[in-house]
């Protein structure tokens, strides 16, 4: 009896031990190193020197391009997460309906997600090439334009394009998370609502949304983290050019570390990014959970 009791007590911990070890080695330990580096002097060649307090943070934040980069990061995260969540939600509603070819539609939806982000970014980059890009070719052949258009004539347009690519590649993730939430809703709720004479709007806001909220919360929190840390799209399309005007925090700190050889401020920035993400995700999750409790 005693034996069984001891086993049951320890068994779960043994089962989760490998994952905990992996997390410690590959997540917690590197984060610790980054925190240490952020407060250390790092030479241009990469030699780690003495503790210098917040100097790296001061250097990072006082750089003239820092406000631009932070504003870009904000626009990037809000527009990509916001619009991909909205469009993904609508797509999930559509895919949740019964119609012919629904399975095909769902597979088409998941295709972009299956391709590597670098490949997708390269393809979208190629599409807007002025000289031999597909967009110009199609428009020229259809007769909408007379000569090739330079789609990258201003960095603002390039940044909008990058956001658009970000939205397109993020939609499948939102769609499938929300779709799984929608499928777990019991049909009887809708039947009852229909019997009571509820309109589409009422069903959407009073039945669907509250019940799908846990999936939406998960997808939004994960999305904020993914999109904030997303590197391939901007690095592939503009590399932050011209003069950091299309950089977000992640691409900027990469360029700072490995092009400018200023690893101290770059590490400090990554610590700032980590803290921003912790706070943003924390606030969102707390808000979402509080609403859930009050339901």
């Amino acid at each position, binding site marked *: 009896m005693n034996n069984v009791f001891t086993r049951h007590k320890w068994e779960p911990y043994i089962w989760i031990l490998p994952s905990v070890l992996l997390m410690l080695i590959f997540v917690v330990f590197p984060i610790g190193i980054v925190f240490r*580096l952020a407060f250390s002097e*790092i*030479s*241009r*060649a*990469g*030699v*780690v020197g003495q503790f210098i307090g917040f100097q790296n943070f001061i250097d990072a934040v006082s750089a003239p391009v820092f406000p631009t980069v932070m504003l870009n990061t904000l626009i990037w995260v809000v527009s990509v997460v916001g619009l991909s969540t909205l469009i993904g939600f609508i797509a999930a509603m559509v895919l949740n309906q019964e119609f012919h070819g629904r399975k095909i539609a769902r597979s088409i939806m998941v295709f972009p997600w299956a391709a590597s982000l670098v490949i997708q970014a390269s393809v979208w980059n190629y599409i807007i090439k*002025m*000289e031999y890009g597909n967009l110009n070719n199609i428009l020229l052949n259809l007769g909408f334009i007379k*000569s090739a258009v*330079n789609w*990258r*004539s201003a*960095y603002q347009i*390039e940044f909008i394009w990058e956001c658009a690519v970000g939205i397109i590649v993020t939609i499948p993730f939102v769609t499938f998370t929300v779709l799984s939430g929608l499928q777990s809703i019991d049909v009887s709720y809708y039947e009852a609502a229909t019997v009571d004479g509820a309109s589409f709007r009422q069903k959407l806001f009073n039945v669907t949304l509250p019940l799908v909220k846990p999936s939406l919360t998960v997808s939004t929190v994960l999305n904020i983290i993914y999109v904030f840390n997303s590197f391939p799209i901007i690095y592939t*399309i*503009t*590399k*932050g*050019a*011209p*003069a*950091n*005007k299309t950089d977000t925090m992640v691409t900027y700190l990469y*360029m700072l*570390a*490995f*092009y*400018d*050889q200023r*690893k101290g401020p770059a590490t400090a920035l990554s610590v700032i990014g980590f803290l921003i993400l912790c706070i943003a995700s924390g606030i969102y999750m707390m808000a979402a959970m509080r609403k859930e409790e009050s339901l």
Partner: protein
Amino acid sequence: MKKLLTLVLALAMMLCAFSFAQADDITLDVIIAQYGPNTQDWFLGTGMNGTSFKAKFEEVNPGIKLNLEVVSWNDLYTVVSTRISNNNAPDILNIDTFSDYANEGLLLPVSDYCPETLFADFFPSFIQESVIDGTVWAVPDLASARALYYNTDLLREAGVEAVPETWAELEDAAQAIVDYYSGEVYPWGIDMTTDEGQAAFAYYTWANNGGFVDENGEWALNSDANVEAIEYALSLVKNGFTNPNPATQTRYDLQDMFGAGKLAMVIAPNSVPAYIAGKGFDNVNFATASIPHNEGASSSSVGVMDRIMAFRDDSADQAARNEAIGKFLTFFYDPENYVGWVSMEGFLPAVNSAVGALVASDPSFEAWLSVLDSAKFYPTTKAEWNDVKQGVIAVEQSALTGGDVRTLLNDLQAKVTGK
């Protein structure tokens, strides 16, 4: 229990066997930059007459093992600095810049490991580019020189009789090409990307008697000549004479456009014919000329050089290690090996002993070698070089979006010199 004991014994024996085999060997950690599609194959595959550099070296030099890695330029700086941060610097490194490593005391002086006969074989003007405070810290592995490439057919059809030599002639030629092809062909290629925007700075400022440094070797980024040169380059962009997006179109994009007959003139390295042939562009007729300069200034070619350097390692057998590094260099620069290496990717040699064989195999080398003789190099020995390199790219890109060149260069000069 028995099983466990057997396992432990077996492991112990394996470890012993391993350490015995290693006891007398020196292993050199070598990082080589990936110059092109053949680099990996030459060093580690079968690209060296059916064998690899590594295999052949280890055969000729028993007792020295190579732990050789070929790393792409995209990842090279990341790999090296990460390894240095982890106290795991390579023994031998092939990269472009060396001053940061030398200034921080990470490198061995070349005289510690390079045999004298080999050292005497390097072009002296190349060795001078790797000297800080009288000490040579690296040896050149190869070089490339830049010149103006022009598409002969495009220029002739547009009615451009002579290749432009001055900036004014360049503008006239560009206007003629714009008029004739009405936008289908870009007259002039400019790369102001983070990939190699510093080259554009050199092309225009050196052609206007300006440059990164003054005659005393002090930073002179905001000189009047430089301001005029960069404003001239920008005027080419604003007048529609160039590729449309200089901030994101790299030299490779330009070389592709040139090969495809979409770009009439571009300043590019001597490896362009090999590049164009490798890409399968076979309808393009081109020739080379000097880089156009401003009226009253002289044209100078731009030389780019990469290096091999050895890192300090405070282990006990420094003498044996130095000797092994010397053997590596001797083997690498042996004409039998080196000529194949340099010609494979279309570069120019750094040692005298290779010249004869290279000219015999490709007579065009001779002309390039004389270009290289008069070429100017980036001031890579100066400690602030990396800041300057990134800084001039940022100046160019900011100016493209409307910034004032003089203000931007003044700011950069102040930042670099701390004044």
